[in-house]
């Protein structure tokens, strides 16, 4: 018996021993990142080159539904592995802050960012906007056949030709939450119900929705501006239209940067945060394939970019509506 125990003990030791790896020494910072990787790699590389700090990045992908890293941050709350959260959207970041998973920090480089894009307590800073748009193939759909307001999509003549990503995830989650925040629960639920009964196609991500349009399986889709820009590499006739949420414009979603509470490398994390929210990085983001619109008015002027008409809803109000929207989506679309 004791020999067997020793054998099993030795086996386990061998397995664990094979895993023996020392933690990296020196200046380092761990960033969890859901911003488009092609772009984020360039940014993080520039920071590494400039500071000598070793950046270890874990990227989220559309396959991970952009919420995979959020889950990881929550699961690791008792012993955080990441120092910085660099997100492609803002609403989940706000919720992380409300749950006490972020630490306040006001970067000096964010001084020229309008207050609307900074948390009052310093929990997050936002840069680089993407718009929620309707994408369509101009070869098959004329602009005159498109709705003007998001709510019109529920009409059966539009719903039957619409593709959209599962609203439990990613930026579509925030978009539907914005509808609930502005329209109220009843109108929001009716909208979802009519989408379903009208035959709208729910797919598993924004890029899948764009592909459905490109393949002719859908006439148009709800997506983000950057998805349309990159898809034009394959289909130049893909166009976008900004629809009105109901108060004069569409939803513009910024990227966000935040410090994880009790992250293992607080000093280098602050340095990276300073860099990520700087005008230099926002300019890179604007000039990338993603084409994000800067939140800094001076930078927008300099780059000749204009803000499309946008909703007046505050990001906090949209974050407030996330739960209600999620519940309605589960009840109406996922049932």
């Amino acid at each position: 018996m004791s020999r067997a125990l020793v054998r099993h003990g030795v086996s386990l030791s061998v397995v664990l021993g094979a895993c023996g790896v020392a933690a990296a020494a020196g200046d380092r910072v761990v960033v969890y990142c859901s911003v488009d990787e092609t772009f984020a790699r360039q940014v993080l590389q520039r920071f590494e080159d400039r500071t000598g700090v070793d950046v270890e990045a874990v990227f989220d992908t559309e396959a991970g539904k952009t919420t995979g890293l959020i889950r990881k941050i929550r699961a690791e709350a008792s012993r955080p592995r990441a120092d910085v959260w660099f997100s492609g959207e803002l609403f989940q970041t706000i919720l992380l802050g409300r749950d006490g998973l972020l630490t306040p920090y006001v970067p000096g480089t964010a001084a020229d960012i309008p207050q609307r894009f900074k948390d009052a307590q310093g929990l997050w800073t936002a840069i680089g906007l993407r718009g929620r748009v309707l994408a369509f193939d101009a070869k098959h759909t004329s602009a005159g056949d498109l709705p003007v307001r998001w709510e019109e999509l529920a009409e059966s003549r539009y719903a039957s030709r619409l593709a959209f990503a599962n609203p439990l995830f990613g930026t579509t989650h925030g978009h539907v939450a914005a509808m609930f925040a502005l329209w109220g629960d009843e109108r929001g639920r009716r909208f979802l119900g009519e989408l379903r009964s009208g035959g709208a196609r729910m797919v598993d991500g924004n890029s899948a929705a764009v592909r459905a349009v490109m393949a002719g399986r859908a006439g148009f889709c709800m997506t983000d501006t950057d998805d349309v820009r990159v898809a034009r590499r394959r289909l130049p006739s893909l166009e976008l239209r900004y629809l009105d949420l109901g108060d004069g414009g569409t939803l513009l979603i910024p990227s966000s940067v935040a410090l994880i509470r009790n992250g293992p490398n607080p000093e280098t994390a602050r340095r990276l945060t300073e860099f990520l929210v700087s005008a230099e990085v926002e300019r890179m983001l604007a000039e990338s394939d993603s084409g994000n619109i800067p939140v800094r008015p001076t930078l927008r002027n300099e780059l000749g970019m204009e803000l499309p008409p946008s909703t007046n809803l505050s990001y906090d109000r949209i974050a407030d509506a996330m739960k209600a929207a999620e519940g309605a989506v589960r009840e109406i679309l996922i049932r």
Partner: protein
Amino acid sequence: MLWPGPGWALFCLAVLIPAVVLVVRSVQLGGSAGVSFWPSVRQWTLLGRTAWLAACGVLACLVLSLPAAYVVGRLGRTSRGPLIGALLLAPLLLPPMVYAFGWQRTGLSLLQGRPGCVWVWASWCWPIPALLMGSGWARGGRASYAAALLDASPPGAFIRVVVPLLARQAAVAGLILLVLFLGEYSVPHACGLTVLATELLGWAANSDRPADVLLPALPLAATALVGLVVLHRVWRRAAWEESAADGLPGPPVGTGRLVALMLLVDAGTVALPIGLLTAEAGSWSAMAGALRTYGGELAASLAVSAATGLLAVGMGLSLVGGRGLRGLALVAAVLWGVLPGALVGEAILTAYQRFPILYDHWPLLVIGYLARFAWIGIGVAWLAAVSLDRGMAEQARTDGAGEGAILRRLALVPQAPLLLCGVATVAALSLADLAVASLVQVPSVGLVSLKLIESFHRFEDGMLVSLSLWLVAAAAPAALLAWVALRARRGGIG
């Protein structure tokens, strides 16, 4: 007996501990409000679609495997034709996503959507049933085949007489493929399809409560369980003719013709999609650029995947050699393997979060992949063990040989191609995995599967094709190694 300790240690790390933690956490936290024990209509619909796709995939795969099964059966042992063995192994060395991207280059509408998904699975997995059915025929059914040859051509006799005799082998292959396809996420995703695994990945990524994913995933596990029961019944009932010519080749046939047939099958299933990718690659500079950008990720992913393949089959051999409770281990690993990868990943994270030596570094990835694909390693080892020549084993026992020596010399060495297939399949699946990877990825290791799918999402076709071709290039030495190993065996044993 083989030393079972390492096998059980790995099994505990990859399957038992995470499973217990998952169940405990599910009970402790319960499900979210509005999530019921009974799956929703949508989940049933997705389960139906998933099962239908998987069943079509299994059928297509079995049909597509027949020419290669014929070749393997006529040859007797793959060691007698090392080139054939390497050609047989080649399709399994590539991640299925690469096939999907290659076939999409044809632009044929027939190869998009559901038919595309079924065809990609079939063109990737046909070696599994081919090897199982071919090896089965090499050990039995010779007399019926010889009789049928009197009024039919060799292939005609094979289809008419031998195939119906191979119900056991077909059932084993069918179960392996079914489990593989039920939990497979990458190919349906690349084909633009939403299956239950897609939906559950979303739930796992979104919910703080494991029960939200565990409950809707149970029908998948139940489907796999039904498959196991069906296999058990087929196995017991199927007629099986043990040939007097066990292990010997069939009637003389030119190896050249068999090689030509295998080349034809490989050309239609592997060379064509890879050729289309190669034609689109553009230039060496694009390939070099991809290597410069993602060389580290490529190397790390290959190393982790290869280690997982070897560990999975090694674990299986260790467990099967030890005999006690091995059946339970196989059933547990199958049921665990059919659960959505994200749920498995979630369980691994929860189980090892307090152990930085595992959690913060690459071993977490190996454990995650091993959890997902342990069943293949155990299953392959089991098949190698049951292929043992009983008469010869009895004789060896009488002569005083130990069980370990008997297993090694009479089952493992003759079944090296099967074991290599197991290693290759686990490695390729690990290399292509997205579901587990998206949760268990660690800061120090970038994963090429995530880069590949992100290139797909971002319409970066140049990077997508270049990365896919680097994976093909990485698989080539493994096929060459298999060829060399089989040649060496032919010289030493054959």
